[in-house]
């Protein structure tokens, strides 16, 4: 499988990363080089083998489906880029692209 420039533009859009044309071209080359090494996986017989879940370690106990708030030592205002009346502000959605 080979990644095209169009693929790079698509995944950059999915990942919300702006890439210059020049950078997109170099990323395509880099990803193709990296993925060529991943092709070795196709030589492994995985018929009937389950996918790993997490680290595969049987240690994660069930717990109550309830969340405990994490006490914060400083308010949202101290680290949120833009805030009003306790709500996080974002740019207007009217200019947001609606088609992926």
């Amino acid at each position: 499988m080979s990644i095209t420039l169009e693929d790079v533009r698509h995944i950059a859009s999915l990942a919300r990363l702006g890439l210059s044309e020049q950078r997109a071209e170099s990323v395509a080359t880099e990803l193709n080089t990296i993925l060529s090494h991943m092709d070795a996986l196709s030589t492994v017989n995985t018929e009937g083998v389950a996918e790993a879940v997490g680290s595969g370690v049987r240690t994660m106990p069930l717990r109550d489906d309830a969340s405990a708030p994490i006490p914060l030592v400083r308010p949202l205002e101290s680290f949120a880029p833009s805030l009003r009346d306790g709500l996080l502000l974002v740019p207007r959605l009217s200019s947001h692209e609606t088609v992926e």
Partner: protein
Amino acid sequence: MSALSAAALRDQTISGDASPAETVDAAVARCAAVGAGRERLNVFAWADDADARDHAALALRQRDQGGTGLLLGVPVAIKDNIATLTLPTTCGSNILAGYVSPYEATVVTKLRAAGAIPFGKTNMDEFAMGSSTEHSAYGPTRNPLAPDRVPGGSSGGSAAAVAAGIVPVALGSETGGSVRQPASFCGIVGVKPSYGRVSRFGLVAFASSLDHVGVFGATVDDAARGLRVIAGHDPRDATSVDAPVPDYHGAHEQSVKGLVIGRPREYFPDSLDPRIRERCDAALERLRELGAEVRDVSLPHTSMAIPVYYIVAPAEASANLSRFDGVRYGMRVEGEGLRGMYEATRSRGFGPEVTRRILLGTYVLSAGYYDAYYRKAQQVRTLIGRDFTDVFASGVDVLFTPTAPTTAFPIGAISDPYEMYMSDIFTATANLAGVPAMSQPIGLVDGLPVGGQFMAAHLGEMKMFAAAYALERALGSEARA
């Protein structure tokens, strides 16, 4: 190396022969003496002498109240991706420039409860993605033993802080070898505990099924004490194991007579530097002389670890790092509308390696490629885990291997991303399987340290430490000479 071990510093603090304030003064003086600042070694992302002195005052109060915490009065450096309340937590990234966490990582709370003195936030590869600590917004960290070379990564700043003798203990994090490989390059001890053994609450997530908090020590005992303090169940981390924590430093009394040590052939390929092979085999011979049994064993899927790791880790990273979008914390760069703001913020905030891995992860999870890459990688990961299960079920207590295929390489020497990824070839398997592993110095090649790695079954840290203590004693000054 630090003039005093963690145990000696603690004892002197309790007896009154040393005060926490004097200890901080000594660490600050050591920073100046070795050139820990940006202009030379570039060990720290954030350092504040006044902050360290505040923590020293708290340690003094603990002592005056009769405290005997395991790290009382011991300065501990902390990687810049572990949340602290009084210093920024920026993951070596511009996207978190100036961010100070509103909550504290459990491991830091545990350190402070044990009387430790948090001493600076150490430099790292951005978001822990790298094997050299060259990919930080704050510039590269240099190896204290050979400043023209890398300290390894991604926890290179923490490794350098210990190797330069600033602190005897430091915290790092591991996703594919980011504690053990820099420990190997810097001639110190680095431990990756079992998955779930140490809480990740407050560790900025990179790849959640692979991330661990790890410990550096100047010696095996320093690392054992550090791990003893930070290990244990944490209800705030759903992956945390609820199991008793042994006194790892008690393993120094255990004999290795009868211990079965596996030498997996896949970690000693023909391409391995013969001098590294020789150091490993010499270490195994010492262990055999002490009564251990050394067996040749096989972990047949080892060569698949890097392809699996570099699919699974970027896939998880692409999800975890989606939270850095300019809305909730960190930097915001205005753009056209909401999407423009997202793209401008993330493109300006993330460096090239992080961008590359987010794109790689997005690709392997995207429609049409998921089965060929991500699903296949998770199936092969199951087989890698079975390799470990089978070898330990066969009666092997611990495995011994080289930690890395090379010694520390010159800064700027590796520009090909995949060549850099291969630096993790002997370490990524333990992260994929969730088993504990550690690196310790076993000698030099061309004047540079070589690390030997022990691995054990899940929650088998005591056996690993017993072997490591014994080997350290047997090698003595040979390990670092």
